[in-house]
């Protein structure tokens, strides 16, 4: 039943996800989720001059998790880190033309994965990690 509530956009990104794969020597990596709950998302970033020049992902999870990973990595490519930090789960879900309510957590995972990867990069550079907004 849930399956059938997926938009065409979700199905498109699920069936032919963009940016799949591991990245050699990434500038930032973030892994979020919990295999017990059925989803893990790993986001890799290539960063040059504070701009995300490439993003990749590896995801264990349902259709929405895979589609969210694909869409989120698409959305942040070419963005500055500041801009990428502002890509919310809502933005991911909207770009996917909506997610079923019980699947919204997949878009949250994507947002968290991006944040974690950006902070991984910041820490490697010797910066303070940015804080999650409390209403995230």
């Amino acid at each position, binding site marked *: *039943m*849930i*399956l059938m509530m*997926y938009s065409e956009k979700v*199905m498109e990104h*699920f*069936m032919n*996800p963009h940016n*799949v794969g591991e990245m050699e020597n990434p500038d930032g990596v973030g*892994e979020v989720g919990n*295999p*017990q*709950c*059925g*989803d*893990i*998302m*790993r986001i890799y970033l290539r960063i040059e001059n504070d701009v995300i020049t490439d993003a990749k*992902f*590896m*995801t*264990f*999870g*349902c*259709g929405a*998790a*895979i589609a969210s990973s694909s869409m989120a990595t698409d959305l942040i490519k070419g963005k500055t880190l500041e801009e990428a930090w502002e890509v919310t789960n809502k933005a991911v879900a909207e770009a996917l033309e909506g997610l079923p309510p*019980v699947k919204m957590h997949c878009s949250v995972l994507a947002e968290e994965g991006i944040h974690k990867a950006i902070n991984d990069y910041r820490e490697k550079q010797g910066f303070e990690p940015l804080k999650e907004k409390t209403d995230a």
Partner: protein
Amino acid sequence: MNTNKDDTGNIIYLDHAATTFTDPKVLETMMPYFTENFGNPSSPYDMANVSKEAVDSARQQVATAINADTDEIYFTGGGTESDNWAIKGIAFANRKKGNHIITSSIEHHAVLHTCQWLEKQGFEVTYLPVDKYGQVRTEDVKKAIRDDTILISVMLANNEIGTIQPIPQIGRIAREKNIYFHTDAVQGIGQVPVDVEALNVDLLSLSSHKFYGPKGVGALYIKKGTRLDNHSHGGAQEKKKRAGTENVPGIVGMGAAIEQATSQLEEHAAHMKKLRAQLVEGLLLIPATHLAGHPEKRLPNNVNVIFEYIEGESILLMLNSYSIAASTGSACTSASLEPSHVLIACGFPHEVAHGSLRLTLGKENTEEDVDYLLQTLEPIIRRLRAMSPMTPKEQRE
């Protein structure tokens, strides 16, 4: 057969444990009871008598199929109602004798949630563990019995992994101790012989749409002399035990379906076992794949495999795009994110249980269907594993 296809093309339907199509021959028997012989079986005139006789003859068909007496069969609105009735009916009627119930941890939710509700009403419930194949140990049953135990409920065959329980043995224990024994036989009918005498049961649940009968109708076998309260109170239907105007066409269909299912049982089971062997053999060629449930003591039409490193819903989504209908024990499809309680009870770790795929065969399936599934599935598993951070490097290609 054209019944496993939908408008969009040729669907390979491999989810017969979820529901079956209504057999066209069964549907034919139902048709006269909608518009022509539509009388209320309780009504006092000839026209309605046709309905009454139809219900009686369906009752006879169900009774014959499970080796019961006709007046031990009560029609209900489905397997869930039968389970609810059996358990709550015994609980409320025998409360003075005791308030302890024993069941297993791998029952269908129709049993588990009913037991949980009874716990809120002050009953105590023991949920027995199972071994890695999903079997209840009769030793555990014996140990769980207390002086105030009034009911044991253990399913005949599990709906997810197909494991068949030692019902005759548990029944013998229950009978020795004078405890009522219920079995949910919803998945067993038409797949394995079901004989209430051989099984030593007092109550047995059936659901028509699992054996090519219509949805929304089931039955409860109640051994003569069993004390239980009603679940639906009201009119005097079903010898005052189950109120509500009888679903005459549904009941007629259920009767025809169970007669057909039991008369074809052996050849059907043989057909299922052959396809199952083909299926299991092909599936286990895929690395890091495990068969869940018992290797032999399982329903002839059930296959449940677990693919490590990936999640079930995504498998189903891809199969769906190749017109294959199947099921998973992963509840990433639900808000709870809990994988199947059955697979967890069998000892599979959560992250592994999420990778389950249930394929349940039906009479219209062919070797070609199985070949198509295997050909389609293998690359799907490969693709999903290639995306998964859990997949070990050496298994990524």
